[in-house]
């Protein structure tokens, strides 16, 4: 369908739900112009600005870095700000946008992320520095830095968390997002409590609850691999004491220059 030869018109189906008035969620259709470069978020903005101001969604940076606009588009979790609308249209020229699954809906496309942040807090995502902090700087090898890179680029959008089948069943599971951050802290040679972290992660709600379904990898808009991080944590949890001893040894040399290969 086109708009008198201007831009084609496409259908955006949005899941609507207002807990104060609706018994259950329903899909509402809107028509928007498909201009060059339009993203799914642009379409949502267009609808909110010109068609229905009550459509509710989260967004902030529009550059795929804040993680606010993670939603379920055509059944797949992604950041709508970097999702080109044209590429998301089905054969009938429609796109369907729903909130992140398995999380309580606050309104329309906004979900309650409390459990997400609670689990994140649980893994103590901050760095616990050693007692003997170097006077000048921590010296880390390029290999040690590279090991952290996988987790470092996570923007905490929640796409992996809400695509995880275990999260669908229970909110007691720590979740791929928090385990990825825990991985980052465990692998960081500056962190002083890797043993304590691994002991916590080896508990009933930790790494052994992952069923390696790989949904988190598919969902991650940054192309990260939480499953691999979880698998590494499992291996380290099996040899926790040896890892802890190696870390203590490493921390004695944190201020020394890295020997060149």
């Amino acid at each position, binding site marked *: 369908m086109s708009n008198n030869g201007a831009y084609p018109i496409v259908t955006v189906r949005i899941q609507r739900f207002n807990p104060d008035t609706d018994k259950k969620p329903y899909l509402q259709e809107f028509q928007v112009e498909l201009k060059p470069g339009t993203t799914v978020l642009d379409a949502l903005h267009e609808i909110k600005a010109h068609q229905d101001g009550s459509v509710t969604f989260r967004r902030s940076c529009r550059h795929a870095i804040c993680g606010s606009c993670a939603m379920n588009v055509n059944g797949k979790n992604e950041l709508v700000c970097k999702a080109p609308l044209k590429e998301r249209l089905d054969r009938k020229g429609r796109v369907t946008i729903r909130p992140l699954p398995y999380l309580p809906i606050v309104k329309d496309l906004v979900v309650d992320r409390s459990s997400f942040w609670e689990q994140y807090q649980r893994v103590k995502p901050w760095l616990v520095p050693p007692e003997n902090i170097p006077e000048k700087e921590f010296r880390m090898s390029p290999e040690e830095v590279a090991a952290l890179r996988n987790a470092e680029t996570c923007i905490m959008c929640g796409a992996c968390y809400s695509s995880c089948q*275990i999260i669908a*069943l*229970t*909110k*007691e599971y720590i979740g791929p997002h928090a385990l990825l951050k825990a991985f980052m802290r465990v692998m960081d040679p500056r962190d002083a409590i890797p043993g304590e972290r691994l002991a916590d992660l*080896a508990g009933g709600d930790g790494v*052994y*609850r992952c*069923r390696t379904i790989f949904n988190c990898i598919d969902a991650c808009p940054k192309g990260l691999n939480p499953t691999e991080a979880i698998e590494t944590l*499992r291996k380290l*949890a099996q040899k926790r004491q040896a890892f802890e001893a190696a870390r203590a040894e490493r921390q004695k040399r944190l201020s020394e220059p890295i020997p060149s290969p």
Partner: protein
Amino acid sequence: MRVFQMQRISAIALLIFLTIHMIVVHYPPFHINFDIILQRMADPLWKAIDIAFLFFVLVHALAGAYVVLTDVQRFSPLKRVFAGAAIVLGVVAMYYGTVTILAFQPPA
């Protein structure tokens, strides 16, 4: 962690036992008849293999069922009940299976 380890170790053991089972019982590279089966079932080594096979099947199946059930949040208060039930069921099935395997005698 213990259930995870049990699951992984029993899975490796089952790979070996199932391979033997499939080759020996279902797709033997030789002619098989009832006499051969009777001889094998009476052999103490095969009885030991069958008992070990039964053990790993039970461990893997019951640990798997326990894990699947406890993944559901509403069942989490029943974790100890499920663990107890799995142990009791496992012991009973192991006892019954072992007695059956050991009691087999080929007809004279």
